[in-house]
Protein backbone atom coordinates (compact mmCIF):
# COMPACT_ATOMS: atom_id res chain seq x y z
CA UNK A 1 0.00 0.00 0.00
CA UNK A 2 1.08 3.57 -0.53
CA UNK A 3 2.69 5.34 2.46
CA UNK A 4 0.45 8.36 2.12
CA UNK A 5 -2.97 7.05 1.23
CA UNK A 6 -4.88 9.77 -0.64
CA UNK A 7 -8.65 9.84 -0.54
CA UNK A 8 -9.49 7.18 -3.13
CA UNK A 9 -13.16 8.15 -3.10
CA UNK A 10 -12.17 11.66 -4.18
CA UNK A 11 -10.00 10.19 -6.92
CA UNK A 12 -12.43 7.62 -8.26
CA UNK A 13 -16.03 8.37 -7.33
CA UNK A 14 -17.02 10.51 -10.31
CA UNK A 15 -15.51 8.04 -12.76
CA UNK A 16 -17.38 5.15 -11.10
CA UNK A 17 -20.60 7.20 -11.08
CA UNK A 18 -20.28 7.87 -14.82
CA UNK A 19 -19.69 4.19 -15.57
CA UNK A 20 -22.66 3.09 -13.45
CA UNK A 21 -25.01 5.53 -15.20
CA UNK A 22 -23.63 4.41 -18.56
CA UNK A 23 -24.55 0.81 -17.75
CA UNK A 24 -28.06 1.83 -16.65
CA UNK A 25 -28.50 3.86 -19.85
CA UNK A 26 -27.22 0.93 -21.93
CA UNK A 27 -29.88 -1.38 -20.44
CA UNK A 28 -32.61 1.25 -21.00
CA UNK A 29 -31.46 1.63 -24.62
CA UNK A 30 -31.63 -2.14 -25.23
CA UNK A 31 -35.16 -2.23 -23.74
CA UNK A 32 -36.34 0.66 -25.91
CA UNK A 33 -35.04 -1.10 -29.02
CA UNK A 34 -36.17 -4.58 -28.00
CA UNK A 35 -32.64 -5.99 -27.95
CA UNK A 36 -32.23 -6.98 -24.30
CA UNK A 37 -32.71 -10.68 -25.02
CA UNK A 38 -29.07 -11.51 -25.75
CA UNK A 39 -26.72 -14.02 -24.12
CA UNK A 40 -24.17 -11.27 -23.48
CA UNK A 41 -26.72 -9.11 -21.67
CA UNK A 42 -27.80 -12.15 -19.65
CA UNK A 43 -24.18 -12.66 -18.64
CA UNK A 44 -23.86 -9.01 -17.61
CA UNK A 45 -27.02 -9.21 -15.49
CA UNK A 46 -25.69 -12.30 -13.72
CA UNK A 47 -22.42 -10.51 -12.98
CA UNK A 48 -24.22 -7.47 -11.49
CA UNK A 49 -24.78 -9.32 -8.21
CA UNK A 50 -21.06 -8.99 -7.51
CA UNK A 51 -21.43 -5.20 -7.29
CA UNK A 52 -23.49 -5.62 -4.12
CA UNK A 53 -21.11 -8.16 -2.61
CA UNK A 54 -19.36 -7.17 0.62
CA UNK A 55 -16.50 -9.57 -0.09
CA UNK A 56 -13.21 -8.48 -1.71
CA UNK A 57 -12.40 -9.97 -5.09
CA UNK A 58 -15.38 -8.55 -6.97
CA UNK A 59 -13.41 -7.76 -10.15
CA UNK A 60 -12.03 -11.30 -10.38
CA UNK A 61 -15.48 -12.80 -9.80
CA UNK A 62 -17.07 -10.55 -12.45
CA UNK A 63 -14.37 -11.67 -14.89
CA UNK A 64 -15.01 -15.30 -13.93
CA UNK A 65 -18.75 -14.80 -14.50
CA UNK A 66 -18.00 -13.57 -18.03
CA UNK A 67 -15.58 -16.43 -18.80
CA UNK A 68 -15.73 -19.75 -20.61
CA UNK A 69 -15.51 -22.44 -17.92
CA UNK A 70 -14.96 -25.41 -20.22
CA UNK A 71 -11.54 -27.06 -19.95
CA UNK A 72 -10.83 -28.87 -23.22
CA UNK A 73 -9.42 -27.14 -26.32
CA UNK A 74 -12.02 -26.54 -29.05
CA UNK A 75 -11.70 -28.57 -32.24
CA UNK A 76 -10.91 -25.60 -34.49
CA UNK A 77 -10.83 -21.81 -34.38
CA UNK A 78 -13.39 -20.67 -36.97
CA UNK A 79 -13.24 -17.01 -35.91
CA UNK A 80 -10.43 -14.88 -34.48
CA UNK A 81 -12.33 -12.48 -32.23
CA UNK A 82 -14.14 -12.81 -28.91
CA UNK A 83 -17.52 -11.54 -27.71
CA UNK A 84 -17.06 -10.84 -24.01
CA UNK A 85 -19.28 -13.60 -22.67
CA UNK A 86 -19.42 -17.34 -23.35
CA UNK A 87 -22.26 -18.58 -25.55
CA UNK A 88 -23.47 -21.12 -22.98
CA UNK A 89 -24.66 -18.75 -20.26
CA UNK A 90 -28.40 -19.51 -20.37
Amino acid sequence: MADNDPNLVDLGFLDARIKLIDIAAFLDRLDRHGQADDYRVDALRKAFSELNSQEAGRAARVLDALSDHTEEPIEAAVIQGAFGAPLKTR
Partner: protein
Amino acid sequence: MVSRTMDDYMALACAGCKAVNEPAFWAGFDRASAQGFYDYFRQITEYEPRRAAKFCIEHYCWLCINPKEAEDPGLAREVISLIPEFLKKPNVLGIGEIGLNKNSRNELMILEEHIQLAEDHGQLILVHTPHLEDKRKGTKLIIDALLNHPKLDPGRVIIDHVEEHTAPLVLDKGFWAGMTLYPESKVTPNRAIDMLEMYGCERVWMNSACDWGVSDPLSVPKAALEMRRRGYDDAFIDQIVYSNPAQFMGQSERFALK
Protein backbone atom coordinates in the same frame (compact mmCIF):
# COMPACT_ATOMS: atom_id res chain seq x y z
CA MET B 1 5.94 -0.25 -33.11
CA VAL B 2 5.73 -1.12 -36.79
CA SER B 3 2.22 0.32 -36.98
CA ARG B 4 3.14 3.58 -35.20
CA THR B 5 4.59 6.80 -36.51
CA MET B 6 7.83 8.51 -35.47
CA ASP B 7 5.69 10.88 -33.38
CA ASP B 8 5.17 8.03 -30.94
CA TYR B 9 8.91 7.40 -30.60
CA MET B 10 9.35 11.13 -29.99
CA ALA B 11 6.65 11.11 -27.29
CA LEU B 12 8.16 8.00 -25.66
CA ALA B 13 11.63 9.56 -25.63
CA CYS B 14 10.26 12.75 -24.06
CA ALA B 15 8.49 10.67 -21.40
CA GLY B 16 11.83 9.11 -20.40
CA CYS B 17 11.51 5.79 -22.21
CA LYS B 18 14.90 4.07 -22.58
CA ALA B 19 13.89 0.91 -24.45
CA VAL B 20 10.93 -0.74 -26.12
CA ASN B 21 10.29 -4.41 -26.70
CA GLU B 22 8.09 -5.43 -29.60
CA PRO B 23 6.53 -8.87 -29.82
CA ALA B 24 5.80 -10.43 -33.19
CA PHE B 25 2.05 -10.03 -33.52
CA TRP B 26 -0.93 -10.23 -35.84
CA ALA B 27 -1.02 -7.56 -38.55
CA GLY B 28 -4.82 -7.18 -38.38
CA PHE B 29 -5.15 -9.57 -41.32
CA ASP B 30 -3.73 -13.02 -42.03
CA ARG B 31 -0.49 -13.00 -43.98
CA ALA B 32 -0.72 -15.10 -47.14
CA SER B 33 2.63 -16.87 -46.94
CA ALA B 34 5.73 -17.52 -44.88
CA GLN B 35 7.53 -14.99 -47.08
CA GLY B 36 5.36 -12.28 -45.54
CA PHE B 37 6.68 -13.27 -42.12
CA TYR B 38 10.25 -13.31 -43.40
CA ASP B 39 9.90 -9.67 -44.41
CA TYR B 40 8.18 -8.86 -41.12
CA PHE B 41 11.01 -10.46 -39.13
CA ARG B 42 13.50 -8.39 -41.15
CA GLN B 43 11.47 -5.28 -40.36
CA ILE B 44 11.52 -5.81 -36.59
CA THR B 45 15.13 -7.03 -36.40
CA GLU B 46 16.78 -4.62 -38.86
CA TYR B 47 14.68 -1.59 -39.71
CA GLU B 48 12.72 -0.86 -36.54
CA PRO B 49 15.84 -0.65 -34.30
CA ARG B 50 17.18 2.07 -36.59
CA ARG B 51 13.94 4.06 -36.32
CA ALA B 52 14.01 3.79 -32.53
CA ALA B 53 17.71 4.74 -32.38
CA LYS B 54 16.90 8.11 -33.93
CA PHE B 55 15.23 8.91 -30.60
CA CYS B 56 17.92 7.28 -28.42
CA ILE B 57 15.60 4.37 -27.65
CA GLU B 58 16.87 0.78 -27.64
CA HIS B 59 14.61 -1.52 -29.65
CA TYR B 60 14.20 -5.19 -28.78
CA CYS B 61 11.86 -7.77 -30.26
CA TRP B 62 10.42 -11.27 -29.95
CA LEU B 63 9.80 -13.71 -32.79
CA CYS B 64 7.00 -16.18 -33.52
CA ILE B 65 3.83 -16.71 -35.49
CA ASN B 66 1.08 -15.14 -33.42
CA PRO B 67 -1.61 -17.53 -32.14
CA LYS B 68 -4.21 -15.76 -34.28
CA GLU B 69 -2.47 -17.23 -37.32
CA ALA B 70 -1.67 -20.61 -35.78
CA GLU B 71 -4.81 -22.41 -36.96
CA ASP B 72 -2.99 -23.47 -40.14
CA PRO B 73 -0.23 -25.79 -38.88
CA GLY B 74 1.43 -26.01 -42.30
CA LEU B 75 1.94 -22.26 -42.52
CA ALA B 76 2.84 -22.02 -38.83
CA ARG B 77 5.59 -24.66 -39.18
CA GLU B 78 6.99 -22.93 -42.24
CA VAL B 79 7.20 -19.69 -40.24
CA ILE B 80 8.72 -21.42 -37.21
CA SER B 81 11.42 -22.87 -39.48
CA LEU B 82 12.46 -19.30 -40.38
CA ILE B 83 12.98 -18.20 -36.79
CA PRO B 84 16.39 -19.78 -35.91
CA GLU B 85 18.12 -17.65 -38.56
CA PHE B 86 16.74 -14.49 -36.93
CA LEU B 87 17.60 -15.53 -33.36
CA LYS B 88 21.16 -14.41 -34.14
CA LYS B 89 20.06 -10.78 -34.58
CA PRO B 90 21.35 -8.49 -31.78
CA ASN B 91 17.93 -7.14 -30.73
CA VAL B 92 16.08 -10.47 -30.37
CA LEU B 93 15.17 -11.30 -26.76
CA GLY B 94 13.32 -14.55 -27.33
CA ILE B 95 10.20 -16.29 -28.61
CA GLY B 96 6.91 -14.40 -28.45
CA GLU B 97 4.19 -13.50 -28.27
CA ILE B 98 3.19 -17.12 -28.45
CA GLY B 99 0.15 -18.52 -26.72
CA LEU B 100 -3.48 -19.09 -27.57
CA ASN B 101 -6.30 -17.04 -29.09
CA LYS B 102 -9.45 -19.20 -29.34
CA ASN B 103 -8.00 -22.14 -27.39
CA SER B 104 -8.11 -24.57 -30.31
CA ARG B 105 -6.23 -27.84 -30.70
CA ASN B 106 -4.08 -26.48 -33.54
CA GLU B 107 -3.21 -23.33 -31.58
CA LEU B 108 -2.17 -25.53 -28.66
CA MET B 109 -0.05 -27.76 -30.91
CA ILE B 110 1.78 -24.75 -32.38
CA LEU B 111 2.23 -23.29 -28.89
CA GLU B 112 3.93 -26.55 -27.86
CA GLU B 113 6.25 -26.32 -30.86
CA HIS B 114 7.17 -22.72 -30.04
CA ILE B 115 7.94 -23.69 -26.43
CA GLN B 116 10.19 -26.47 -27.70
CA LEU B 117 11.92 -24.01 -30.06
CA ALA B 118 12.59 -21.66 -27.15
CA GLU B 119 13.89 -24.50 -25.02
CA ASP B 120 16.13 -25.84 -27.81
CA HIS B 121 17.69 -22.39 -28.32
CA GLY B 122 17.77 -21.25 -24.66
CA GLN B 123 15.45 -18.33 -25.34
CA LEU B 124 13.22 -16.28 -23.04
CA ILE B 125 9.48 -16.67 -23.69
CA LEU B 126 6.75 -14.03 -23.95
CA VAL B 127 3.22 -15.44 -23.86
CA HIS B 128 -0.01 -13.88 -25.09
CA THR B 129 -3.19 -14.97 -23.34
CA PRO B 130 -6.60 -14.88 -25.03
CA HIS B 131 -8.97 -12.00 -24.47
CA LEU B 132 -12.41 -11.66 -22.91
CA GLU B 133 -14.33 -14.89 -22.32
CA ASP B 134 -11.43 -17.03 -23.58
CA LYS B 135 -8.76 -15.72 -21.17
CA ARG B 136 -9.47 -17.85 -18.08
CA LYS B 137 -9.51 -21.15 -19.96
CA GLY B 138 -6.62 -20.15 -22.24
CA THR B 139 -4.39 -19.10 -19.38
CA LYS B 140 -4.91 -22.46 -17.67
CA LEU B 141 -4.16 -24.38 -20.90
CA ILE B 142 -1.02 -22.28 -21.48
CA ILE B 143 0.25 -22.84 -17.93
CA ASP B 144 -0.31 -26.60 -18.31
CA ALA B 145 1.57 -26.57 -21.64
CA LEU B 146 4.52 -24.71 -20.11
CA LEU B 147 4.62 -27.00 -17.07
CA ASN B 148 4.83 -29.98 -19.43
CA HIS B 149 8.42 -28.83 -19.97
CA PRO B 150 10.05 -29.60 -16.60
CA LYS B 151 13.41 -28.15 -17.66
CA LEU B 152 11.83 -24.80 -18.47
CA ASP B 153 12.52 -22.17 -15.78
CA PRO B 154 9.24 -20.29 -15.09
CA GLY B 155 11.33 -17.27 -14.16
CA ARG B 156 12.32 -16.99 -17.83
CA VAL B 157 8.70 -16.87 -19.02
CA ILE B 158 6.39 -13.87 -18.90
CA ILE B 159 2.67 -14.48 -19.35
CA ASP B 160 1.10 -11.28 -20.60
CA HIS B 161 -2.38 -9.75 -20.55
CA VAL B 162 -3.15 -10.99 -17.03
CA GLU B 163 -6.27 -9.66 -15.32
CA GLU B 164 -7.60 -10.03 -11.80
CA HIS B 165 -8.83 -13.60 -12.36
CA THR B 166 -5.64 -14.90 -14.00
CA ALA B 167 -2.76 -13.03 -12.31
CA PRO B 168 -2.72 -15.37 -9.27
CA LEU B 169 -2.70 -18.46 -11.52
CA VAL B 170 0.40 -17.15 -13.30
CA LEU B 171 2.31 -15.87 -10.26
CA ASP B 172 1.60 -18.91 -8.10
CA LYS B 173 3.45 -21.10 -10.61
CA GLY B 174 6.55 -18.88 -10.59
CA PHE B 175 6.02 -17.18 -13.97
CA TRP B 176 6.29 -13.44 -14.56
CA ALA B 177 3.00 -11.63 -15.12
CA GLY B 178 2.58 -8.86 -17.71
CA MET B 179 -0.17 -6.26 -17.52
CA THR B 180 -0.73 -4.69 -20.92
CA LEU B 181 -2.47 -1.34 -20.56
CA TYR B 182 -5.12 -0.07 -22.96
CA PRO B 183 -6.95 3.26 -22.91
CA GLU B 184 -10.45 1.92 -23.50
CA SER B 185 -10.48 -1.85 -23.20
CA LYS B 186 -8.91 -4.54 -21.06
CA VAL B 187 -6.64 -3.44 -18.19
CA THR B 188 -6.61 0.24 -17.22
CA PRO B 189 -3.82 1.89 -15.21
CA ASN B 190 -5.98 1.91 -12.06
CA ARG B 191 -6.80 -1.78 -12.31
CA ALA B 192 -3.13 -2.58 -12.89
CA ILE B 193 -2.21 -0.69 -9.71
CA ASP B 194 -4.99 -2.55 -7.88
CA MET B 195 -3.40 -5.83 -8.97
CA LEU B 196 -0.04 -4.69 -7.61
CA GLU B 197 -1.75 -4.01 -4.28
CA MET B 198 -3.44 -7.41 -4.28
CA TYR B 199 -0.76 -9.67 -5.72
CA GLY B 200 2.50 -7.84 -4.97
CA CYS B 201 5.25 -6.26 -7.05
CA GLU B 202 7.57 -9.21 -7.62
CA ARG B 203 7.75 -10.74 -11.11
CA VAL B 204 5.29 -8.19 -12.52
CA TRP B 205 5.62 -5.62 -15.26
CA MET B 206 3.33 -3.14 -17.01
CA ASN B 207 3.53 -2.42 -20.71
CA SER B 208 1.80 -0.05 -23.12
CA ALA B 209 -0.07 -1.65 -25.99
CA CYS B 210 1.31 0.02 -29.14
CA ASP B 211 -0.49 -1.81 -31.90
CA TRP B 212 -2.66 -0.85 -34.87
CA GLY B 213 -5.84 -0.70 -32.75
CA VAL B 214 -6.89 1.90 -30.20
CA SER B 215 -3.81 1.92 -27.97
CA ASP B 216 -1.54 4.42 -26.30
CA PRO B 217 2.27 4.17 -26.18
CA LEU B 218 2.23 6.50 -23.16
CA SER B 219 0.03 4.18 -21.06
CA VAL B 220 2.92 3.24 -18.78
CA PRO B 221 3.92 6.88 -18.04
CA LYS B 222 0.24 7.60 -17.42
CA ALA B 223 0.07 4.65 -15.03
CA ALA B 224 3.14 6.08 -13.27
CA LEU B 225 1.26 9.36 -12.85
CA GLU B 226 -1.71 7.44 -11.46
CA MET B 227 0.59 5.67 -8.98
CA ARG B 228 1.90 9.05 -7.87
CA ARG B 229 -1.68 10.34 -7.42
CA ARG B 230 -2.39 7.28 -5.31
CA GLY B 231 0.51 8.09 -3.01
CA TYR B 232 3.28 5.80 -4.23
CA ASP B 233 6.85 7.05 -4.05
CA ASP B 234 9.48 7.24 -6.78
CA ALA B 235 11.25 4.05 -5.63
CA PHE B 236 8.05 2.03 -5.98
CA ILE B 237 7.24 3.50 -9.37
CA ASP B 238 10.80 2.93 -10.58
CA GLN B 239 10.60 -0.73 -9.59
CA ILE B 240 7.44 -1.28 -11.61
CA VAL B 241 8.19 0.72 -14.75
CA TYR B 242 11.97 0.21 -15.00
CA SER B 243 13.67 -2.24 -12.63
CA ASN B 244 11.25 -5.14 -13.02
CA PRO B 245 11.21 -5.14 -16.84
CA ALA B 246 15.00 -4.67 -16.87
CA GLN B 247 15.35 -7.63 -14.49
CA PHE B 248 13.28 -9.92 -16.68
CA MET B 249 14.72 -8.86 -20.03
CA GLY B 250 18.22 -8.69 -18.51
CA GLN B 251 18.16 -12.49 -18.42
CA SER B 252 19.01 -12.20 -22.12
CA GLU B 253 22.63 -11.27 -22.78
CA ARG B 254 21.32 -9.08 -25.61
CA PHE B 255 19.58 -6.66 -23.24
CA ALA B 256 21.89 -3.72 -22.58
CA LEU B 257 20.04 -1.76 -19.85
CA LYS B 258 20.95 -3.87 -16.82
